[in-house]
């Protein structure tokens, strides 16, 4: 699989705070990368760097096939102004705003794509609703529909399941699964070790000034989670008690 993005010896942070150093990884098409870490470990900063909103302190980002014209992006819900006077279909259409005609806006083809995205996100009946009448889960579905419309090879999702119920989470995960099948690269910032990880091929663990990247099984070990300050020793012992016991028995 071709790499969409290559990071080489990358350090990220601010002039007076280095979040991590020496990260190298290849983000390949068709992979899903979970970015995990404690609060303040640099998860959202990492996403902002990928979006080009800030530069790394050192190292290099390389786009082997050129930087995509469009990067699908879903910010945290807390950063969104829900009182803005706009309908759901217009919010979704923002995913294609650069293709709008100056006077007539979205053409028939564009309107059909908006309708299809709303359908796929499971909210075709909310198209004419104002944003302020939506619940958190409904708004998140609308924002997912906007990402669908962006039709981007690289998709960045910053804590997409923070304010949604289980059924919405399951529906949104099915969309992420389809993106992977369509050979898109997906970066998924998650705050907890949840069922989301079953849908990820790789993980990037941030914290304590370091970054570790690899397959989910390689990265999410009790030792690494404790070393990056994501779990305390006792939390790790409790969470991984089954696998530790199995290891002990195998050792005996």
């Amino acid at each position, binding site marked *: 699989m071709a790499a969409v993005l290559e990071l080489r010896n990358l350090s990220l942070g601010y002039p007076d705070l280095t979040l991590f150093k020496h990260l190298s990884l290849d983000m390949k098409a068709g992979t899903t990368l979970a970015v995990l870490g404690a609060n303040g470990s640099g998860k959202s900063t990492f996403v902002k760097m990928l979006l080009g*909103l800030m530069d790394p302190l050192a190292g290099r980002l390389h786009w082997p096939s050129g930087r995509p014209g469009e990067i699908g992006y879903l910010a945290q819900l807390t950063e969104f102004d829900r009182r803005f006077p*706009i309908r759901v279909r217009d919010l979704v259409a923002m995913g294609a*705003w650069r293709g709008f005609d100056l006077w007539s806006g979205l053409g028939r083809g564009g309107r059909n794509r908006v309708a299809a995205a709303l359908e796929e996100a499971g909210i075709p009946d909310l198209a004419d609703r104002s944003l302020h009448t*939506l619940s958190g889960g409904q708004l998140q579905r609308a924002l997912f529909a906007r990402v669908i419309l962006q039709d981007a090879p690289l998709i960045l999702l910053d804590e997409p399941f923070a*304010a949604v119920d289980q059924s919405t989470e399951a529906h949104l995960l099915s969309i992420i699964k389809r993106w992977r099948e369509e050979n898109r690269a997906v970066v998924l910032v998650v705050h907890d070790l949840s069922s989301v990880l079953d849908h990820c091929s790789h993980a990037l663990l941030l914290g304590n000034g370091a970054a570790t990247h690899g397959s989910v099984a390689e990265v999410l070990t009790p030792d690494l989670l404790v070393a990056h300050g994501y779990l305390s020793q006792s939390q790790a012992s409790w969470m991984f008690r089954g696998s530790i016991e199995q290891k002990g028995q195998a050792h005996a």
Partner: protein
Amino acid sequence: MLELFAEMWSFAFMRRAFVATTVLSASVAPIGAFLVLRRLSLAGEAMAHAITPGIVIGFVAAGLSVMSLLIGGLVAGVGVAILTALLARKTILRSDASLASLYLIALAAGIFILSAAGSAVPLKSFLFGSILGIDDASMMLVGGVAAVTLVAFAFLLRPLIVSTCDPIFFESQTRRPWLVDQGFMLLLVLNLLAAFKTLGTLMAVGLMILPATAARYWASTITGQLVLGFLFALASCWIGLTLSYFFPETPSGPAIVLVAGGFFLISALFGPLGFGGRLRKPSPGAKPSVEQSYAEERIQ
């Protein structure tokens, strides 16, 4: 009564005032709408004060000509906008505190220079506007600014909507997001200058903010916000100018802004997104009300 209106309409300066404010309403309505939606209402007010020294220095140097007004105001407005951004980026102050500090200095400097120069123009008309001051050159200024604003909005409207609704998404989708911000600020300064003769420096922003905030209580779409904002601005100008004519001691600026204030209060009381919406009980099975959604938003 009709005779009084006919008498008012017989004066060329009144006809000019009506035409100028009608064009001005079309120009300031979209600016006001986005000032409110971008949460820049107070920044707009501050900017109106910040351009004062530029206008005054232009006036003292070259008299009350449209060019001196335009150049002086633009230099002061753009200067304050750049200094505000610099202070916010390079020092501990946030942009609101930076802008507040700069506009206070600018306003004080403007009034000081105007008084020290012993100007022949009454301070009252400078601060609050005068319908008598609308000459042909002022009409040209208002018309030119309106044309520039409306053409610019044809290009800026969609980027403005995206950047206002979801600024982080917008920044992620464009290499030069500052172009929209700075373009909007430039249009704001131009419109403040266009409104200066009719409304004065202290009241100029009133015609932008109050019709927009009044429209906010009724409109749930951008189109509705823009159209209603224009209609409120237009009605405020026409009624305000009429009041100013019937009460000759009244400057036109406060009269127009006071009428706009009336629209705001009525909208806050009766608009579906104001107190009026809160008093209505939702019917069973109805869509969630605005206040339910706000409550939910706060909980989340």
